[in-house]
């Protein structure tokens, strides 16, 4: 097998061949390590607690899926449909705002010459890395005073100002947006805002798609800020639902807990396997870390 995988035309010593096989062994081990926990999760979600207690590891799916679902939903705590709906509203809303307004802000930075432009960009660079969690007390205080706790809006509207995404969009826009096109649109009498919407946005589509994926997933996975703001079970998000599974109510219902975890990660798995090519490419570009 080793000799087949070696590139032709280069002579390899036996030591190099052994090393080459070793690389595959390590990579396959790591691949198993990535998949195995999720496989156990999926299998145990279909088994009874008794089966799980007798043989915690099994690769054979059980038949207890619906029963586990009954137990999971029967406690009137974990509600995947409510979690799904709230997480989707927040993630979709925040993603649309982040992608649209970051592109608009990047356009302001790239296409126009204005006095405060350099300063504005410097500020964006400076605050890009500061995570929202360190100013969470002031944020909570503000949201509490305007009566927006247990409301999804404070988790959506701030997405308009995403410094990291603006930075990424600017870096992408500089080499890929020919200003001649913008100029000719002006000659044709299009307004600046229309030029942005109808000419600039389509050119920026690839970068917007990449950032949209990361924004969506980042918002979906967020726990800290939603947990602070949302205390009413009607507005719980998926990660808050997960933290409910940690409570005493589900203590020994292993099958139901595994199923609950499975339900919370399923949407992200679907997104990942549909878009993994773009996601990996986005990470390689140094996609903004959430």
């Amino acid at each position, binding site marked *: 097998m080793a000799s087949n995988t070696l590139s032709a035309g280069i002579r390899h010593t036996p030591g190099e061949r052994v090393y080459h096989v070793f690389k595959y062994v390590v990579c396959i081990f790591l691949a198993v390590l990535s998949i195995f926990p999720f496989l156990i999760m999926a299998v145990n979600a279909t088994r009874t607690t008794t089966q799980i207690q007798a043989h915690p590891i099994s690769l054979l799916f059980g038949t207890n899926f619906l029963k586990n679902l009954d137990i999971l939903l029967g406690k009137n705590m974990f509600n995947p449909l409510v979690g799904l709906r709230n997480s989707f509203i927040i993630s979709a809303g925040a993603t649309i705002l982040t992608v649209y307004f970051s592109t608009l*802000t990047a356009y302001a930075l790239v296409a*126009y010459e204005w006095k405060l432009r350099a300063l504005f960009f410097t500020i964006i660079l400076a605050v890009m890395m500061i995570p929202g*969690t360190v100013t969470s007390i002031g944020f909570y*205080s503000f949201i509490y005073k305007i009566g927006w706790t247990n409301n999804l809006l404070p988790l959506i509207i701030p997405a308009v100002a995403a410094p990291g995404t603006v930075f990424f969009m600017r870096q992408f826009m500089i080499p890929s947006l020919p200003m001649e096109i913008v100029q000719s649109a002006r000659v044709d009498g299009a307004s600046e805002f229309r030029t*942005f919407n109808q000419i600039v946005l389509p050119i920026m589509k690839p970068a917007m798609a990449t950032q949209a994926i990361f924004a969506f*997933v980042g918002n979906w996975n967020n726990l800290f800020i939603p947990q602070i703001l949302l205390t009413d079970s009607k507005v719980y998000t998926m990660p808050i639902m*997960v933290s409910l599974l*940690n409570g005493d109510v589900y203590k020994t219902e292993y099958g139901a807990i595994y199923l609950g975890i499975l339900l919370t990660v399923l949407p992200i798995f679907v997104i990942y396997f549909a878009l*993994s090519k773009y996601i990996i490419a986005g990470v390689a570009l140094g996609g903004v870390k959430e």
Partner: protein
Amino acid sequence: MKKDKSFSYAKYGYLFSIPFVVVYLIFSLYPTVTTILLAFTDAKGMQGLSNWNFLPKEQIFENFVQVVATPSIEKSQFINALKNTVILWVVNFIPQISLALLLTAWFTSRRNQLRAQGFFKVVFYMPNIITAASIALLFNKLFAYPIGPVNSLLQNLGVIDAPIEFTSKVGWTRGIISFIQFWMWYGSTMIVLISGVLGINPDLFEAAELDGASNSQMFWKITVPNMKTILLYNIITSLIGGLSMYDIPQLFNKGNPRRSTITANMFIYNQAFGSNKLFARASAASLIMFVIIAICSVFVFMAFNDEAGKAKRAAKRAARLEAKKNKMEVG
């Protein structure tokens, strides 16, 4: 004429920045200022959010003193939490960057091309995108005691005789939390590093190859020095992420055993949103974290600036060389 035109369009630069600036001022800057102010007040309880007083002058740093310097066990929790946070990050990051570098060397090796790279990248990166809270709870169940998948696996393999109560032991709990971080992030780090290697001028490698350099010589003498900025960026973003760690230790073991995995963010959350609602003290702790993270951010900022400067210097050098060459050819 041209200058006149660009002047008339300048207002759109301001206009299109307005949504960002307004939302940033209201939802980021204003909360930041509030957090800073609250750190010097007596804000406590829900009514304390709108009804607070600045501490008297001689006690203005009282919240910071209570958070940091008071030696009683209960109050020195923040230093303990900060220590935990740093330990959890370091124990995850050293193996993470080491494995990512090793895999980068393997995946970009020019002599022995590894197959199925696309598949490995997709699988290695996968844990990174899954909800951290869900992963932490999943690992809590995988490491269950006395009967759980990991205990069962280790017993079947004959590694251990009796099941281990992982979540009651400091070393195990910290180790598992660090492992989860490591496991979630090495794929991401690897992909970033690989794209960095692909960005290095291939002529450098070809020249080294002609000179008979070995794979490892090329890796340490060409690859690593050329990726200093990417490595620095990676270290600092990882550090900032690590300092804000919350979901994984919270969902894995709620900071137990014996407060050994309470992180700084968990401390802040408990102070502000626990039963006592000590907003002022939580703000003081936030402010300390803010300063630490801001210092880290400055390094990222300088790295980017340095990169831009380097590109400029390189361009200048190339232009000079070119000019010299032309001169010589003429001469």
